[in-house]
């Protein structure tokens, strides 16, 4: 099972700034192991973020994103105490959802 994300959400004026660190290998499918065998691609494909159940960000990712990705974004709205949920799904179908409270 994938390790948790680290999410920080801060109210900045009338917007919310969200910073997310994700635990993921993000294998490109281009790399070879010590035996010379290609390491299969394994990467996050979809990322969604929701504020109080409403989607505020939806992204499609590929193998060009680094290992242990860092994502920072802002959305209009959000108040201290509201919940922000982030979900990723990778190309193996594994998924992880974590939640943070807006500070």
């Amino acid at each position, binding site marked *: 099972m994938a390790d948790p994300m680290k999410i920080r959400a801060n109210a900045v004026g009338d917007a919310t700034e969200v910073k997310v660190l994700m635990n993921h290998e993000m294998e490109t499918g281009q790399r070879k192991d010590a035996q010379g065998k290609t390491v299969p691609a394994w990467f996050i494909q979809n990322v969604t973020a929701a504020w109080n159940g409403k989607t505020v960000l939806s992204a499609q990712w590929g193998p060009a994103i680094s290992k242990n990705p*860092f994502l920072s974004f802002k959305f209009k709205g959000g108040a201290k105490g509201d919940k922000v949920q982030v979900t990723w799904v990778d190309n193996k179908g594994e998924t992880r959802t974590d939640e943070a409270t807006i500070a």
Partner: protein
Amino acid sequence: MTSTMRAAIAAIAFAIAAPAALAQGSTEKGIEAYRQALQDGNPAELWEARGEDLWKKRTGPKNASLEKCDLGLGPGVVKGAYAQMPRHFADADRVMDLETRLVWCRVNLQGMSEADAKRGPFGGPDRKSDIEALVAWITSESKGVTMAVSLDHPKMRENFELGKAIFFFRGGPHDFACATCHGEDGKRIRLQDLPNLTAKSGAQKGYTTWPAYRVSQGELRTFQWRLNDCFRQQRFPELEFGSPASIALTTFLAYNANGAAFAAPAIKR
């Protein structure tokens, strides 16, 4: 929480400002800009979070957590402990760095065998290291704290002197010592700046920015790893994890960094 954060940010800003002032030429400036861009969102935080959980988790034959582990400031006191390590521990009557102290606590508090407690000190893609995670969290609790390693105990003084001798020890087919690359100011290998660890400012800059998340490896690396991989490039045999020489060398370098604000876990290329 906010004051810790602020201290951490100040520490990072300090760490950036120093090399930026030294940087000459556009290549170095470009590399510096890249390093700066990495500062926001250091994945080391993922290791810190896992380490904090591991510290509190009951495990081992004694089903105990590490929460009573004494890092030198009393059982369970983590805040600021790393800034005074390595140190002499009376209960073990020897000098220990953080990694060896963690092994000691895992053996004595959690009842693990020494072999189990030492297993997997350096993680890779398929094997996460619990020691790296614990070190990430414990060191993060010293961010912004002034380095204050004491040589008052005779064994600390002796370890410092031994560490110094090891630092200058030349051997192997290339005649390399630690001092070969880290004994002069303002030098670099290819485009990589080398801190002069025999000078106070160099030792402070070098020592206080480990552990670090290495972007090129996608791993958080501890000071034990740093020493291990330096000796590999020195063409020496492998430095064993937690070995006496590794602790002596760490004592020498940590003491030379005294007076600086601890600034890790950092992020490096």
